[in-house]
């Protein structure tokens, strides 16, 4: 197990490096000039040149790359071009909101998706199965921001149950939770079909497996067969899907944060795009990439724990 964990963790580094290089290249092939974008078209040439000097835009690419990577090692993500303040603190302030939403979306997806998957597998090809699948298909077909808008309309406007905007006070757990409900539902309900699908197919595979039939032949009660043997094995493929699912959740939550005006990485990113804040944009991309690579690593390691066959490859 230790060898597998070590090897897999090591693999994360080249992946992360490739991603960092990719982000660097994308940010540098900008057709526009950041100086013009920030200072405006009427800015005098001396101001533009000074801007480029300050931000190191005139340095050769390998120097810029060195600064970029070096900065990451020392935890320096640079300075925002839009508000001239260090980026890392701004990101750190936004992170709890993003983590909350991603985790909440995951919980919603699992709590609703897994039972639904088991349910549709058990009663497969009946009308219950079809209606449940159409419902989760409907969820996938709804833009998450649209569901957010509908939820705001019905639960914040027509009935004053939940707050419309903001993230709430981090220090007050009740406020934090209160502001989390509608966004989490917007993200979770739309994407849960992925979980349902995987659970269903895994469960179908397991139900007809030999060891289940053996357990039944032994005379075990049905619910023991289902939960002790079938479900535990069916959950294995689910673990490997969680990594991808978190990536989908992250994408979905960017839009939801706009609808609810909720602080977080998504808001920083969209703000950076509209204000042409290239350094902030780059930093946020790096953060996202880091989170995704980390989540995938954890998922693979968890998979190694759950399915012993993987470790001996």
């Amino acid at each position, binding site marked *: 197990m230790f060898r597998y964990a070590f090897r897999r963790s090591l693999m994360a580094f080249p*992946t992360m490096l490739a991603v960092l290089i*990719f982000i660097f290249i994308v940010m540098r092939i900008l057709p526009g000039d950041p100086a013009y974008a920030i200072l405006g078209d009427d800015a005098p040439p001396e101001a533009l040149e000074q801007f480029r000097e300050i931000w190191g835009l005139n340095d050769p690419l390998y120097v810029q790359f060195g600064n970029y990577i070096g900065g990451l090692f020392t935890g320096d993500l640079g300075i925002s071009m839009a508000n001239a303040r260090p980026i890392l603190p701004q990101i750190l302030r936004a992170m709890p909101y993003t983590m909350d939403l991603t985790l909440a979306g995951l919980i919603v997806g699992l709590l609703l998706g897994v039972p639904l998957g088991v349910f549709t597998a058990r009663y497969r090809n009946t009308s219950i199965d079809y209606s449940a699948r159409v419902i989760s*298909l409907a969820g996938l077909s709804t833009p998450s921001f649209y569901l957010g808008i509908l939820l705001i*309309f019905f639960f914040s406007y027509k009935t004053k149950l939940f707050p419309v905007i903001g993230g709430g006070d981090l220090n007050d757990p009740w406020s934090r939770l209160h502001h989390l409900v509608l966004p989490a539902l917007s993200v979770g309900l739309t994407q849960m079909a992925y979980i349902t699908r995987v659970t269903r197919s895994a469960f179908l595979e397991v139900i007809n497996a030999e060891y289940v039939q053996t357990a039944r032949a032994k005379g075990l009660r049905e619910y023991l067969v289902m939960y002790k043997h079938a479900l535990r094995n069916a959950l294995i493929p689910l673990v490997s899907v969680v990594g991808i699912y978190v990536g*989908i959740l992250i*994408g979905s939550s960017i839009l939801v944060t706009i609808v609810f005006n909720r602080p977080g990485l998504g808001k920083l990113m969209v703000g950076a795009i509209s204000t042409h804040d290239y350094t902030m944009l780059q930093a946020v991309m790096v953060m996202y990439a880091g989170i995704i690579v980390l989540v*995938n690593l954890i998922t693979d390691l968890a998979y190694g724990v759950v399915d012993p066959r993987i470790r001996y490859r």
Partner: protein
Amino acid sequence: MLPNQTRRRMVRAIRRNKTTLVGIALTLLIFLVALLAPWLAPFDPIQQNISNGDMPPGPVNILGTDSYGRDVLSRIILGTRVSLGIALSAVGIAIVVGSTLGVVAGYKGGAIDAVTIRVIDMLMTFPTIILGLMVLAVLGSGMVNLALAIAVAITPRFARVARGSAIAMRERDYVQAARALGMSDLRIIFVHILPNLANEVLVVGTLWTGTAILQEANLSFIGLGVKPPIPSWGGMIRDGVNQLFSQPWLSIAPGVAIFIVVLAFNMIGDGLRDVMDPKTME
């Protein structure tokens, strides 16, 4: 199994699956709307008539008007062309580019393949919308750029499918025989590999068209999409969101359109996937 037998089996399975049939019917209807849009729309979607602005749904403007007095229903109908056009372009580009890269990598193997699979995996770690945002941040908004941005996110998926197919095909007897006979690589790819790829590409393509439409809506909602006054469903929701409480139909109606179209494609895709997956077949 010979391609003909598989295809016949598929068609029979599709006919039995109600969801897919509804999906296909709905999709055909949507294409019809997109084609006939200029004639179906009761009003000019771009023409402003501010004195008639912000009217609620009524007998004249069935879905009401927006702040500029433009008929919402007409804008939604024209929006069908925009959304469908962008989504299909994006998927088309992704299929062509992705399949080419995937087949070449899979068939040739070696260093080309190693590099390609690394790039594919790396691109696939990014959520679709983040890739789209990156590309749009670089290129700026607009219809073509939007299609490109979405295509960038989808291409790795097709590349992977194509590569898998090419690798499987390359070991087949008749392909090896063709090589032994001196058939050029290009001919082998066109004659043997691509036709087998077509089935899978069809399934994957339908699935991703729905996603492409959603991504177009997402990006337009953020504000990086189609430029006004061209009607786009995501853009319409964005414009209407500030008036959500006073004129809710402005945001709600385009969303229903998005939902119907994406649902249609997803129904087809879901049914096709069931047909392909032996575990869920009877």
